[in-house]
């Protein structure tokens, strides 16, 4: 049996939650699918205060924003939330198949918003398969969701926001953070996060990398070394750092497979960190009625993901004819917010990525 759905939102993270709420507030009926057993996405483990402005809940901790959004979704009569529900495929005829409780569901949505987020990248070096080598996301889940101290002594790879924030949270959990190593010449994350770590005594080593890991059956230490301007390891700079955990925070890549499957045009755009669907200014892909919001269309801060979710949700409402005047106002407001969030020096990369998307769109 095929179930008809008015608005299908795939993914219950910051973008998906905001998209569902925006569409439902306008009067549309929404089915929100979440693969995990609880909604919230990465917000559930963000114990730091968010940046941005009041409209993106700045100053509030990420998990508190998640709780707030989930409460609103649960209380909303126009939204049905389905957890433990994994989307398996999107077909040319518009049918979406879902695995839920060992059952294969078939949905026929009028509009779909993909908000599947991103996956962590990995790093290649000898013995990188030793137990004790984690992605930063896993460490954060162990600590902040499971309440488990994930390590005694850790080396963090990556001084972007995730590497800096997870290092800080490990310090808070009582883990000894030996150092943060970063291959780039500069710290990529917010400098206030870096300063916070540094004044707690954690060195941040730029132009350093992991040469290899070692250990008998589990991680016992890593060999770090310096890099030259051409990214080559400098012989003689090796440093042996004993540790029981190595944490990798070397970037994210968009989870755009569903958009591919549905036939949306995707392109590799370096500044957006991978293959991304080419979307218009309302975040609609090249497939009519199929939208993308959040990290799936380019890696950015969670604040922007929430605004993109709102933008896509209201754009869908306009397209369906719900509360059009107000929804259009909200679409325009969300666009203006995104311009503001991306207008500073830290937004240079995302602006360049979006410019490339616009150029590709023009070529079609």
């Amino acid at each position, binding site marked *: 049996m095929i179930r008809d759905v008015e608005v299908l939102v795939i993914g219950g993270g910051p973008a998906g939650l905001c998209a569902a709420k925006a569409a439902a507030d306008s009067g549309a009926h929404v089915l929100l699918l979440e693969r995990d057993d609880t909604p919230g996405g990465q917000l559930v483990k963000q114990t730091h*205060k968010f940046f941005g402005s009041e409209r993106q809940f700045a100053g509030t901790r990420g998990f508190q924003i998640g709780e707030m959004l989930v409460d609103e979704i649960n209380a909303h009569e126009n939204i049905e939330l389905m957890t433990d529900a994994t989307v398996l495929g999107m077909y040319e005829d518009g049918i979406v198949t879902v695995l839920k409780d060992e059952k294969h569901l078939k949905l026929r949505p009028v509009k779909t918003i993909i908000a599947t987020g991103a996956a962590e990248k990995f790093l290649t070096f000898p013995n990188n398969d030793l137990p004790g080598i984690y992605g930063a996301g896993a460490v954060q889940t162990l600590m902040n969701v499971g309440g488990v101290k994930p390590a005694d002594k850790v080396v963090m790879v990556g001084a972007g926001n995730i590497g800096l924030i997870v290092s800080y949270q490990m310090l808070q959990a009582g883990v000894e953070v030996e150092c943060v190593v970063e291959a780039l010449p500069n710290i990529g994350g917010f400098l206030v996060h870096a300063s916070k770590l540094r004044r707690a005594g954690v060195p941040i080593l*730029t132009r350093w990398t992991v040469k290899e890991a070692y250990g008998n059956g589990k991680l016992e230490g890593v060999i770090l070394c310096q890099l030259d301007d051409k990214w080559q390891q400098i012989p003689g700079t090796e440093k042996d750092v004993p540790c029981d955990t190595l944490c990798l925070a070397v970037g994210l890549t968009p989870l755009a497979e569903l958009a591919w499957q549905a036939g949306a045009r995707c392109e590799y755009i370096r500044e957006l960190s991978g293959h991304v669907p080419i979307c218009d200014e309302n975040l609609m892909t090249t497939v009519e009625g199929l939208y993308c919001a959040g990290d799936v269309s380019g890696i950015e801060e969670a604040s922007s993901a929430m605004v993109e979710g709102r933008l896509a949700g209201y754009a869908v409402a306009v397209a369906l004819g719900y509360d059009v005047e107000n929804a259009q106002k909200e679409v325009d407001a969300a666009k203006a917010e995104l311009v503001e969030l991306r207008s*500073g020096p830290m937004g240079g990369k995302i602006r360049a990525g979006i410019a490339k998307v616009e150029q590709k769109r023009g070529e079609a």
Partner: protein
Amino acid sequence: MLINDGIPTAEDLAKVLPSEERLNKGPIAITECFQEIACNPCVAACPHHAISMEPDINATPKVDPDKCIGCRVCVAKCPGLAIFVVDMTQSEGTAAVTFPFEYIPVPEKGQLACGLNRAGEEMGWFPVLRAVSGGKKNLTYMITLEVPKELAMEVRNIKAGGYRDGK
């Protein structure tokens, strides 16, 4: 340099430090926020409208030395934990430095804590004058430490735990 080790330089600090004349008048907030990022909760947090950000949310904050009374409200509100309050009038030889703190255990008033500078180096043991919670939702503590005047622009944190009792 700040951009590759996380430690603000003297040139960075020169942009945000109040004049000596103002420092000698009483407590004032110092925003050690040097990077243009999209963030502005400090502006709304200030009950005295002493913090401004122009032209937009991406600018770094500016503290009006005449309006700021050093009330410390902004210290727990800044998401970057980058605002400090320095009171050079604590006593003849000492200053009171207030900074945000998010570790356990939290020191108690009267205990001695090990002060750390911006590089995390130990600067000595100093009395805790105040340890105030930012609230149930905010969860950041504001710790005020009494340090010798010459360390007022150095001490920016304490080592978590190992606090000593009394003098």
